[in-house]
């Protein structure tokens, strides 16, 4: 017994030593020379994104030679940020963050609220912010200040198989345009035609993904219907997520599943292999189609819109750059962020990584260089892009949203949509309240 207590005491002593050691010791990253900054990015330099990125960094270092220098550390993430974000979290605990980090769009609020990243407004006065897409400013702004600057943008559209449409009797002139998109009921009747013709679901809406794709791809339906996930301040979900507008939007989704127009268990790559006529997906699918499935002739259609508002809303959001609060190289860091988000850099990353630009001027610049599909997404983004909610408790809010979508897609188990959203809104509200305590 004596031995045991002695050992516990010893362990406790070591433990205290370590804990006080971490708390007290302010370990500053020794960045070599003044003007030299370290940047963490979430991808590998062996990807197209990494190659384009390195080009931007090289350009920056050349232009500012003798004044500033940026060094990148490439940290490949897994899935939707795991790995990279775990590393950032660990670095925060040990106070060893670099000067500039990348962060996913929805993380802005949490990082800003916790004082991990610093506001950029005072440095952005000469950055021609009017040229920047609204969605980029929305996702980077918390509490009225711009904390993070997206360096690329994304968007989603409805891919369709031209041959299958033709065979089902849907003519080119019936197709929607950005100015005149399909309403939900028009979309449903098209789905009906196709489903009856081919005896399979008309569209893969990635309902099976069960991850961030659901929040990203399905929130526009709410917004188009005038609904919302949370209020403007990001403080209330109850009364917003469970109002009738949300219920209507989710009813539309549930009907698609119930009628067999879409499915919760799609065939793998069903669109790419010509089994489904439509696919809800982002710009990355184009690269895949052009490289591996060249016999599929496809086009991209805008998001279907609510019958009541007819307002086109499309999903946006991507990774952004932000300056950490601990950096001692504020000028160099902000100068770098500005550089990496200027017209030229946006062009490099857009073309290099097949993603969308963040500036109107870049869109003008590359409009004629990109494919038709890319152009549709670029313009849809310009016209109707809507960033995801800026909430401190985003992970929980997003997960509750994903689960709500998943719940209602099991229409037999959960026929009552109101009940589902009530329960999920309570979950969101609890998470929000706890995060703001």
């Amino acid at each position, binding site marked *: 017994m004596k*031995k*045991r207590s002695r*050992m516990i005491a010893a362990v406790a002593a070591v433990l205290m030593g*370590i804990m006080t*050691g*971490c708390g007290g*010791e302010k*370990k500053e990253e020794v960045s070599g020379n003044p003007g030299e900054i370290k940047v963490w990015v979430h*991808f*590998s*330099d*062996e*990807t197209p*994104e990494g190659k384009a990125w390195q080009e931007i960094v090289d350009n920056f270092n050349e232009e500012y030679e003798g004044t500033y220098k940026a060094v990148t*550390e*490439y*940290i*490949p*993430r*897994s*899935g939707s940020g*795991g*790995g990279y974000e*775990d*590393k950032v*979290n*660990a670095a925060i*605990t*040990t106070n*060893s963050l670099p000067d500039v980090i990348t962060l996913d769009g929805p993380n802005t609020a949490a990082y800003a609220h916790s004082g991990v990243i610093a506001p950029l407004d005072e440095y952005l006065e000469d950055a021609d912010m009017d040229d920047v897409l609204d969605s980029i400013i929305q996702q980077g702004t918390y509490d009225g200040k711009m904390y993070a600057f997206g360096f690329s943008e994304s968007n989603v559209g409805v891919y369709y198989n031209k041959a299958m449409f033709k065979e089902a009797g849907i003519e080119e002139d019936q197709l929607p345009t950005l100015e005149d998109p399909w309403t939900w009921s028009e979309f449903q009747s098209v789905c009906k035609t196709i489903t009856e013709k081919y005896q399979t679901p008309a569209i893969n809406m990635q309902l099976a993904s069960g991850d961030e794709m659901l929040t990203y791809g399905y929130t526009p339906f709410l917004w188009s219907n005038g609904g919302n996930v949370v209020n403007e301040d990001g403080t209330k979900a109850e009364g917003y997520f469970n109002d009738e507008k949300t219920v209507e939007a989710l009813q539309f989704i549930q009907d698609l599943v119930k009628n067999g127009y879409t499915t919760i268990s799609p*065939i*793998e*790559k069903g669109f*790419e*292999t010509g089994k489904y006529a439509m696919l809800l997906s*982002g710009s*990355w*699918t184009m*690269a*895949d189609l052009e*490289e*591996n*499935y060249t016999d599929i002739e496809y086009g991209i259609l805008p998001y279907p819109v609510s019958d009541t508002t007819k307002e086109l809303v499309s999903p946006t959001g991507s990774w952004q750059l932000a300056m950490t609060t601990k950096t001692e190289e504020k000028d160099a860091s902000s100068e770098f962020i500005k550089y990496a988000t200027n017209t030229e850099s946006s062009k490099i990353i857009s073309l290099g990584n097949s993603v969308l630009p963040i500036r109107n001027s870049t869109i003008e610049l590359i409009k004629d260089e990109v494919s038709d599909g890319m152009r549709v997404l670029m313009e849809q983004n310009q016209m109707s892009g809507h960033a995801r909610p800026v909430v401190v408790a985003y992970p929980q809010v997003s997960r509750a949203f994903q689960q709500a979508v998943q719940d209602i897609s099991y229409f037999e188990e959960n026929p009552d949509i109101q009940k589902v959203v009530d329960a999920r809104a309570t979950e969101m509200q609890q998470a929000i309240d706890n995060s703001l305590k």
Partner: protein
Amino acid sequence: MRKKIRPLRIFEYILLILLAGVFIFPMLWMVVSSMKPEADVYLNLSSLKAFLPSFNPSEWFTTYKEVIKRFSIGTYLINSIIYGLTFSFGSIIVNALAGFAFAKVNFVGKKIIFGILLALLIIPVEVVLIPQFTIVNSLGLVNKRLAVILPAMASAFNIYLFRNFFIAIPEEIIESAKLDGAGIIRIFFRIMLPMSKPAVATVGVLSFIASWNDYLWPLMVLTDRSKFSMQVAITTINTTQPVYINQVMAVLTISTIPLIIVYIVAQKYILQGLGGSGTGIK
């Protein structure tokens, strides 16, 4: 006598091969999928063609060429091998020493420490990830290769495994070695370890596999790409949109081969048994 068993034998083999098939087909699918264009992987998915490579042999290695062009696979492989070998070597020594102490030495507090050890078995790694990083950081080990292999080297599981093996070794062997004037360290390295080749091989293989398949920890403690392991490449290729399944399978095939080799080499020792006497059930 033998002749009578024959038809039964054949039947036994057929059953066994079917059973083996159940276990081996994903590996077959993996290898085969890496040897055809991506579209074919999906087009073949619902038929048995999923288990045949491309009918055009010139396509067999194009995926590998693409993958090698995209990634510095060589560096990652070498790093993974270094981590795997040092980790399993360290695991064997450290855990065998501790297992021996629990099995054959009567020191004070043995029961309590063993109890705590079993309790440590329960801890899921996910739980202690951040505190572990804090410690590695305060030891100044961040971005050192040592940080990859040290934290998981001592393992309650492996100590327990060694202890069980050592307990089975008769006390008399140690006593007679002592009478011959051998020191305890000599007994351990010259008698105990060689006698427990199955345990050594088991711990070696399992440690190697664990080290080989670990992604999160190396990524957390390393910042320098030239030190990254194979898993980092796999993750990159598996999560960078668009994901090309045939390339994923090619990388996975490359990374699985060393594990199979390690296992084939080690299983010879695993089956060697105590003092070479274990010839198995006849």
